[in-house]
């Protein structure tokens, strides 16, 4: 059984896994980091998005052993140790960027990957970047608004199409 050694949310982790173990199952079942959700399990919905070495990936479509030596970031690592929400998390709350909340961890992780590369994305760029994150509640407008706000941009122009 392979051993995976990696850093998850800043903490070193060493875990025996089966070859078939998906990264999302390692996070949820072995590390009890259940904030990363499994929606479709077919890499369509994006509820399982985490960062591996800073890149957004779908944790349901990556084997745990492939994360050997990697730095992994999940939704649990986004808030500060004292519980203060990250910029993006706070903006989702302020702008009602969630309803049921199931897709939200993936949305937040995708949004933070976007803002890392593109600190002031346009509305179109945000919508394009979230193509692989599906939300069945919000209709996306408030998610886009939250990401605009989190990046310090004016949100009055975000159209309610």
């Amino acid at each position, binding site marked *: 059984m392979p051993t995976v050694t990696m850093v998850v949310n800043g903490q070193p982790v060493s875990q025996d896994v*089966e070859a078939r173990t998906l990264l999302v199952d390692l996070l949820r079942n072995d590390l009890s980091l259940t904030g990363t959700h499994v929606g479709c399990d077919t890499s369509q919905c994006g509820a399982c998005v985490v960062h591996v070495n800073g*890149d957004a990936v*779908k944790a349901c*479509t*990556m*084997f745990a*052993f*492939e994360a050997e030596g990697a730095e992994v970031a999940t939704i649990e690592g986004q808030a500060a140790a004292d519980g203060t929400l990250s910029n993006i998390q706070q903006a989702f709350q302020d702008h009602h960027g969630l309803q049921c909340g199931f897709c939200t961890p993936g949305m937040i992780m995708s949004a933070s990957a976007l803002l890392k590369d593109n600190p002031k994305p346009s509305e179109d760029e945000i919508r394009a970047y979230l*193509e692989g994150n599906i939300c069945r509640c919000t209709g996306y407008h408030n998610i886009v608004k939250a990401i605009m706000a989190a990046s310090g941009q004016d949100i009055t122009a975000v159209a309610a199409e």
Partner: protein
Amino acid sequence: MYAFEIERPSTIADAVSVLQNEDAQALSGGQTLIPTLKARLAMPETLISLTGIPEMQGICMNEAGQLCIGGATTHASVATGAIQYPALAQMAGHIGDPAVRNRGTIGGSLANNDPAACYPAAVLGSGATIVTNTREIAADDYFQGMFETVLEDGEIITEVRFPLPKRANYQKFQQPASRFALVGVFVAKHADGVRVAVTGASEEGVFRWTNAELALDADFSTTALSELMVTADGLLEDIHGSPEYRANLIKVMAQQAVDAA
């Protein structure tokens, strides 16, 4: 998922060696293969991961002026790194979604040869060369129909070499749920002629639209295509579109690609 063994070689030579084992399967980014394994549409006993091989990563220019991309280079890396070939970078930047592009690789896409994938159109339209651990294969010889290529068992795509055309563009009419091409057309104007490659449309996978190439050789403009139409015979039919619909889309996408090239 069913149980299997894994190997994670760090050189091409080691990967080739372990792939000689019966029922071993190469794993690149896994964006198609992992869902396939989950559905048990394939059940190899051993997966050979190609993601830990430095010599299969990266983008460079060779002495012949070709853009060389390592077989395990991700779509995201090509989208940001293939600056010498903007049409290719733009194509790579619209495959799937950002998270898929961070894992999926050029070699994986070409080895799979999905009839609706984008890379086959770019490779065929560019007249690229597919380099494996044993040989160099011209794009015109490589694609053999839906999910079929000339790759032998255990053969690995180590690199793809793209000649740089004078002008090129790829236009995709995407199926919005899967983000695969309902029809995608790659047009490239090379010094020795125009190549037009079509994906997403044919029961035979990617193909060259030779009549459009001849017309564009004479006159590289959208009007050169206005009297042409691909026959609907042999085009894909599914819930998203009829063969006739796809035939029309081929023309429309080709014209848009010429316009944008």
